[in-house]
């Protein structure tokens, strides 16, 4: 079960993040998770939103460079050692994590949510289910 992530190419210059987030806000799109990977000249803003298709259109209409990637959103217990356990579930099946970041989604107070980009979504899904983990679907992001 995967979730659509938007990746937006952002030049390193003042005002870019402000402009992009304003676009999403004006279109009433809620950001559920985000991270920025940065280099000297540019960054990639990664976003999980409640309505990916709408966000894609809004950003593209404004000339942004956007691409969609399928990622996993994993719910784990909010306690010491639980992330290590989840990583181990992936590691034992030899699945690589390319990047991950924390999500804002927090429907239950004793859990935390992570966005995971792995080298093989299907293998990772099976590995996580087998270890008893819960993956969130697109319509659980609202």
């Amino acid at each position, binding site marked *: 079960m995967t979730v659509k992530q938007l990746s937006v*190419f952002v030049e390193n210059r003042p005002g*870019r993040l402000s402009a992009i987030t304003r676009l999403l806000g004006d279109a009433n799109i809620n950001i559920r998770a985000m991270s920025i990977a940065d*280099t000297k000249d*540019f960054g990639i803003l990664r976003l999980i939103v409640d309505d990916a298709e709408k966000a894609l259109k809004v950003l593209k209409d404004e000339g*942004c*460079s956007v691409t969609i990637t399928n990622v996993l959103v994993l719910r784990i217990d909010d306690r010491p050692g639980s992330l290590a356990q989840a990583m181990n579930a992936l590691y034992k099946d030899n699945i690589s994590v390319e990047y991950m970041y924390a999500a804002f989604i927090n429907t239950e107070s004793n859990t935390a949510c992570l966005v995971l*980009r792995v080298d093989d979504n299907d293998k990772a899904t099976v590995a996580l289910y087998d270890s008893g983990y819960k993956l969130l679907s697109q319509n659980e992001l609202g």
Partner: protein
Amino acid sequence: MGKYWNESMECATLDEMRALQSFRLQKTVKRVYANVPYYRDMMDKAGVKPEDIRSVDDLHLLPFTCKQDLRDTYPYGLFAAPLDDVVRLHASSGTTGKQIVVGYTRKDLDMWSDCVARALTAAGATKSDFMHISYGYGLFTGGLGLHDGATKVGMTTIPVSSGNTKRQITILKDFGSTFICCTPSYALYLAETMKEMGVSKSDIKLKAGIFGAEAWTEQMRKEIEDKLGCKAMDIYGLTEITGPGVAFECECQNGMHINEDNFIPEIIDPDTGEVLPEGSEGELVFTCINKEAFPILRYRTKDICVLEREKCACGRTLIKMRKPRGRTDDMLIIRGVNVFPSQIESVLLSLGDTAPYYQIVVDRKNNTDTFEIQVELPEHMLSDTIKTIEDMEAKITEALHSTLGIQPKIRLVEPKSLPRSEGKAVRVIDKRKLVD
């Protein structure tokens, strides 16, 4: 040794010079017509026969030659001497990555080194001097051109070639070089490195430097003279004509004397091709009248320039050209390397379905040209991982480096962020101040 290398040529009267030019021109045109089918076709198309060219006044009847002709006849199609008699080849890069090739017979090399010897003598060099050559040796005409000229003068040549700046400074100091030749920006870089190494201008013995292969200003001249404690002299040349030494500066340092006994200059209107009177600004055109292997006729240099035949205080009567003020095409000279925006376009096109918008930004920082190409990120390059984008960036850099012969800094920018303009896009931002 006197003040001139070849006084009879450098100080000839106008009548003598015109008579010699007319004689050599006729001879060259006859030989070229007989030996080079490409020129024969060009002349036949223009309705000109060799016998129509009786003096320099008839020069305008001949058709122009341009860089495209050199490419069309690559590699040896314009050679007017048998390859058996050619003892040297040189080459320079062209717009589409295809280089142009020129050849020299023994006599051509002798003529070329005579021109360079005139330049060196005008800068004050004698056989007692040491010439430190920091131009690259190779297909580029700078290194070997200055080398042969200095050897002819009898100077002690030090063929250092380019690179390894600290070693260059050690050699300058230890070998007691009194002359140096390199690009003007490298001269300033040397001065800076000297400072870092704690070497002062009194530790070196430079009297003069011969600087060329790129545009430079009077302000750079002052800076070089001040920092290296030597005279900074300009030299002009291009591979198609012979290399450095087509024109050179005398002690007056206001304009370069053209070795017109070998290369007849003209100034034309770049749009109509009409010859303009002396003193007008226009495109500089050269005809080689004393070469065997590669005697190019009415070659359009694309340099915008002014010719002046005035009495020079140095005593030379050779016509003078002012420092070229610009070019008629969009060629850039970056760190001594010729770069055409069209080359960049074709490389970008080869990497994707459509060539993305791009902009070239050239600047000069710490006396070295900086070369950045801003490229609007093409759709197919976008990825959610930095690594993928950086790999693409490296691929673009490498492709451009191998085509241009110089490494640009690639800066990816957002789509539609580069300025669009009606008609021709503004592709080049040159922040260097190369014209006074």
